[in-house]
């Protein structure tokens, strides 16, 4: 600790960014930033989060008073220990949840911040991947004395895998290296070299001191050489994932709404792009198309709906589209995939077992899997893959999946919102892995001994003879077909479900 640092005044009690007393009652903040913090306790993670809360957030006065009254001091200083603002969140209540992520909310004058915190010490790959999948931006924390480490590389690899595009390197404990610009520039350069390997859109390094508050919410007076933004200023400008969604329209249908009259609406959230009244939309699986005649919400009909908006779309024709369909424009459709290659983070305590029945969960579809082949495991430090037939907790697996029927899936790096996947244990229902599609193919992989094909006639005659042709019963038909496929799969039979008939078959789809 330098003398200079010790003499340094505590940043003003009312920092510049503290919210004033309600400028207007319905203060709607300009968006939400989901923030993942990566780093260990040793890097000062809790202190940094605590400092952000103290300097920039709308803490209740009783919470502030607790910190002042406790008398707890940050190690080696006379300053309050801000990390105690996270007590009860991270350290105190380890509930033994398999994936342990704590969510903490605070508002600055401009933004809602959601801190996604996962314990760094153990099981960190799956914890971090799970948390990072929700993050708009990640703060990778390093100790200025240590710089970029192997762990930093692992962190960056996990962030990239799950699609985080904005990364901040918080170079903490600058007070312990005499506020040295040289030290910071060296770490910054190492970080840039590292980031070249990944698909980040923005990677920024900020020199700071969480204990003293330099460059957290208040510009540092000890580092005149740094002219960039404070951490909070920078975070307030990071766009959310939804606002950065691409321009290609996707609409995974969640459910079909009927008002008892003429209205039949496809309910869902626009995941990327936008759609307007008059647009022609297509269901990638059936090829059926229709024109949008109404975009309904309870607050009135819209002319256009954009990424992130939850709406109900009414088409000019009554085509048989239900949950699991993904609407798109006629061009740029998602692939009606029969085969998917994906990277998965294995989340389950149970290792991959080729005889377990697994289901693939996409945005709104649940698809029986006829075969999963684990091809390799990925080493996060070298980004090299080594061949493997199995995988276990915390592994990153590269897998090829043959689906029991076609599903609308995008390649994650092209359209992330509809390229994410979960592997689900069909018996327990547990989520065993989360992953991203790296390649999709409309052709079925031909197994050596051939698929057993569940013909629709076969299913209709016995199992489903109580069902009508209504769209609700068609959903039930598909549900039962899926379950039969799962049972056969568990018995070791590679199975596929015959696709639905084309729509111009004379059947009444609307009933």
């Amino acid at each position, binding site marked *: 600790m330098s003398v200079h640092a010790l003499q340094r005044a505590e940043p003003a009690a009312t920092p510049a960014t503290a919210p004033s007393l309600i400028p207007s009652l319905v203060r709607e*903040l300009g968006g939400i930033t989901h923030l993942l913090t990566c780093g260990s306790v040793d890097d000062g993670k809790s202190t940094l989060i605590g400092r952000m809360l103290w300097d920039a957030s709308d803490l209740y006065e009783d919470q502030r008073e607790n910190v002042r009254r406790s008398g707890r001091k940050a190690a080696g200083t006379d300053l309050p220990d801000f990390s105690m603002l996270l007590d009860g969140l991270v350290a105190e209540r380890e509930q033994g949840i398999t994936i342990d992520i704590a969510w903490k909310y605070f508002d600055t004058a401009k933004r809602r911040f959601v801190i996604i915190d996962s314990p760094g010490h153990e099981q960190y790959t799956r914890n971090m991947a799970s948390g990072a999948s929700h993050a708009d931006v990640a703060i990778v924390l390093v100790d200025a004395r240590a710089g970029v480490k192997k762990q930093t590389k692992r962190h960056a690899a996990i962030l990239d895998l799950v699609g985080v595009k904005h990364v901040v390197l918080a170079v903490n404990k600058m007070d312990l290296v005499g506020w040295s610009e040289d030290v910071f520039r060296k770490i910054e350069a190492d970080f840039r070299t590292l980031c070249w390997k990944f698909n980040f859109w923005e990677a920024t390094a900020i020199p700071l001191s969480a204990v003293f508050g330099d460059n957290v919410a208040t510009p540092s007076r000890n580092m005149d050489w740094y002219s960039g933004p404070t951490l909070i200023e920078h975070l307030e400008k990071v766009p959310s994932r939804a606002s950065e969604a691409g321009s290609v329209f996707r609409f995974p249908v*969640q459910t079909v709404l009927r008002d008892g009259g003429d209205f039949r609406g496809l309910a869902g959230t626009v995941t990327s792009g936008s759609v307007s009244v008059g647009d022609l939309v297509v269901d990638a699986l059936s090829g059926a198309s229709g024109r949008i005649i109404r975009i309904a919400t309870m607050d009135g009909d819209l002319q256009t709906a954009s990424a992130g908006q939850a709406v109900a779309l009414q088409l000019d024709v009554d085509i048989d589209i239900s949950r699991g369909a993904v609407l798109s424009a006629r061009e740029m459709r998602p692939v009606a995939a029969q085969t998917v290659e994906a990277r998965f983070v294995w989340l389950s305590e149970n290792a991959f077992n080729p005889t377990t029945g697994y289901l693939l969960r996409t945005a709104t579809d649940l698809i029986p899997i006829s075969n999963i082949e684990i091809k390799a495991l990925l080493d996060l430090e070298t980004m090299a893959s080594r061949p493997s037939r199995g995988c276990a907790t915390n592994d990153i697996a590269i897998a090829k999946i043959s689906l029991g029927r076609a599903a609308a899936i995008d390649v994650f790096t092209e359209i992330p919102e509809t390229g994410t996947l979960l592997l689900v244990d069909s*018996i327990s*229902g547990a989520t065993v892995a989360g992953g991203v599609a790296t390649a999709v193919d409309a052709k079925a992989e031909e197994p050596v001994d051939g698929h057993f094909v569940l013909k629709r006639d076969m299913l209709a005659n016995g199992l489903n003879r109580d069902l009508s042709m209504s769209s609700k019963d068609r959903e039930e038909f598909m549900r039962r077909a899926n379950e039969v496929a799962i049972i056969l799969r568990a018995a070791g039979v590679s199975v596929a479900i015959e696709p639905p008939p084309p729509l111009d078959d004379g059947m009444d789809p609307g009933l």
Partner: protein
Amino acid sequence: MTASPSHLDLLEAESIHIFREAAAQFRKPVLLYSIGKDSTVLLHLARKAFFPAPIPFPLLHIDTTWKFRDMIAFRDRTAKQFDLELIVYVNEEGLKRGINPIDHAPSIHTDVLKTQALKQALDKYGFDAAFGGARRDEEASRAKERIFSFRAAGHRWDPRRQRPEMWHLLNGRLGTGETVRVFPMSNWTEKDVWRYILREKLEVVPLYFAADRPTIVRNGQILMQDDARLQPKDGEKVEIRKIRFRTLGDYPLTAAVESDADTIEAVVAETLNAQTSERQGRLIDHDQAGAMEKKKQEGYF
């Protein structure tokens, strides 16, 4: 659509997404309606999620028979106004045993008339999913709660069985005997709830607004004498005070605050300026250390 939606727009859209995911994946869902401000927002979001169709599941109110009279009146008015299917469930067996919040410890009363009653009701009707208005910002033990929170047979919350949630993918496939609690407002804060009530012009129970009400001060807390079942003890007396409530529950267990805030704007202003977080008003949480944690394991919300 403006270029950048506000945080309330984003929260609303997320809640609608969750409602639709749950309604599509579960066989027989129900909305747990507890009449307070969070339930008011929850119900409003459910209506938006399925508009212009009606809400495709009933509402369930667990009535301990100790709710404020204004709450019951508001509940029945709301059900009628929106043409909702409302199920009111009372643990009659618990009432017969004479369990009440005045003579018994709050924890016993809550367990029998609320927690046990909820389990009985869910079993009786065979609901496999129950929507609740719980938020992660309410309390430390809820900060790690999932959006789909799974319960083993017997409604027990088992931390080991909680499923990781990634991206916006919500896996609702149930294992044998499992049920699920669904929290569409997981990412809302107390302030958001009030801001949203103001923005959407939602009607809330009048008890949130300051008015002259008969009160008894007990253990340093202001209680309202809502009916004759609550009587002053020695040294206590019934006095008229101008009070309002920040949270609503069973009236002998809900502390009031003295306030002049008698309009929604004044209440929101007071809340946004509040110096203390909301659960200080709820006596059951002070009853024992880690109370909420324990109640959750037992099946309380």
